[in-house]
């Protein structure tokens, strides 16, 4: 991950490049190649577990 961040730091455009208006990035144009999928699935997995737990609480205690 550290290697990746170094790559990003060096790839930052200069203020002149930023202000030009022609080469402004849109989604999908990132140079970040780190595999973040495990982190994303961790967050989404935690949400699924929480919703399942809340559904259990709702049904178990309200019934």
């Amino acid at each position, binding site marked *: 991950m550290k290697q990746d*961040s170094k790559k990003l730091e060096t790839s*930052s455009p200069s203020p002149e490049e930023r202000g030009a*208006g022609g080469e402004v990035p849109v989604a999908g144009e990132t140079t970040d190649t780190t595999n973040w999928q495990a982190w994303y699935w961790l967050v989404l997995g935690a*949400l699924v577990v929480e919703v399942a737990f809340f559904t259990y609480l709702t049904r178990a205690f309200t019934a």
Partner: protein
Amino acid sequence: MSFLDWLILSATLLFIVGYGTWRTRRAGQTMDSYHLGDRQAQWWGIGLSIVATQASAITFLSTPGQAYDDGMRFIQFYFGLPLAMVLIAIFAVPIYQRLQVFTAYEYLEGRFDRRTRTLAALLFLVQRGLSNGLSLYAPALVLSAILGWNINLTVWLIGGLMVLYTVVGGSRAVAVTQQWQVAVIFTGMVVAGYLLVHYLPAGIGFTEAMQVAGNQGELNLVDFRFDPNDRYNFWSGMTGGLFLALSYFGTDQSQVQRYLAGRNITESRLGLLMNGLVKVPMQFGILLIGVLLFVFYQFNAPPLTFNRPIHDQVAASPQYGPQLQALEQRHATLFQAQQEATAGLVQALRTDDAAQVAAAKTHLQTTNAATRGLRTETQALLKQAVPSVEAKDTDYVFLTFVLHYLPRGLVGLLVAVVLSAAMGSAASGLNALASTTIVDLYQPSRPHLSEAHCVRASRWATIGWGVLGIAFATFAARLENLIQAVNILGSLFYGTILGIFVVAFFLKSIGGRAVFWAAIVAEIIVLLLFWRTDIGYLWFNIIGCGLVMLFAALLSLRRKQVL
């Protein structure tokens, strides 16, 4: 409050403010340093700052009261948040980090044009300027009502301390103080939750408390039925809540600034994902305190209304006083019945006899329905007697418990929780308002200004927005429910801002002119819909965003046809 409470409250606040100011006294000499802390923040600092920015005093005052009154269904509002964190980490963070922008709106000038950047910045300034005032007003109002503090003095005290460290240390001071504020907040809330269970009658533990609450419909955490007029269900959380979170964390400078301060893309992303992991459990904990309050007041007599000053004012009135007294008598009788019915339900649960449990549950539900009816009747009477005030008392429930039942010292700690949350959240807003004002509105038309001048201007902008926020808080009128008021205000503007950013990120062929006019028309329609219809406020985030995308696409298409 006792001397010990005052001592703990003063020591906590002075330590946090003093430490934040001292630690960052040499910070903020450059624009990068003042607005983004030299982009040196680590993931845990970013995560804590994001949590502290969202969790204002309103969160800790309103949310337990909301659970006390309406159960835990408000949790569904946050279901879209973790997904939003993932989407922002994937799409927005790399763009902002690569461009090394100071504000989210700076990106829009390069992508579209200056007027679209200015429009988005202005929408943010209006919305955040008002919300920040409300963030100061909310705790001052409740503290003045419960502790008898002077409301204006409270607003000036919280606001003054917050402006002091934000002016001195900028973004870095906001982040440093927020770390301590979060520590105080979590300590206070855990202690309050523990004591609530501890204060339940002998033989009633946490499980029994949950059973009593569940049988009274308080554990209504998830509802999968789709109803567009219902503010909180699974679907509104996963759609409206998602869009609100996307707008708030992806385009609101008060949050974007937190992860723009990250050392690199990794730290910024991890900070956001940390928030995605902790937010739902944290809200669950706060709502659980509200449910425990509900159970606590099944065994201990609650006041007829938690808004004591209004109660006292009406009680002294020759016209409405006798009616209120009659309601008080009915309330006392009903509470006896409710207490017996609760004890009956606990007994029945211990027998494990389904028929007995069902009978006891029905009995308690009947008495609780009568109590709720009486509360509604009381609120109507209070509203009739004093039309200018909001009779709904959910914002007062938690602090009333704190003041009447917590031991000396802890009252001071819990008041420190409220004030810390108020300062932590409003300081981020203040920092963002100053950044947007200088970077997006002041600097672009004055390209030859020195960096030192811009930093000085940023400090003055911080003072200016601070004074404006305090002035707004001083003159603010009471709104229905404080946390909802902030969310409604956000929803009216966030959809349009999000729409501009979605077009910027994903619809490459659409240019500045189309998106600018699309945003203007979309905002007018959203405001008209809010004024003329009963659509649940969360839906405005989707409507605003969708309208901007639709109109921008249509205008862009028409322009191409004309050309």
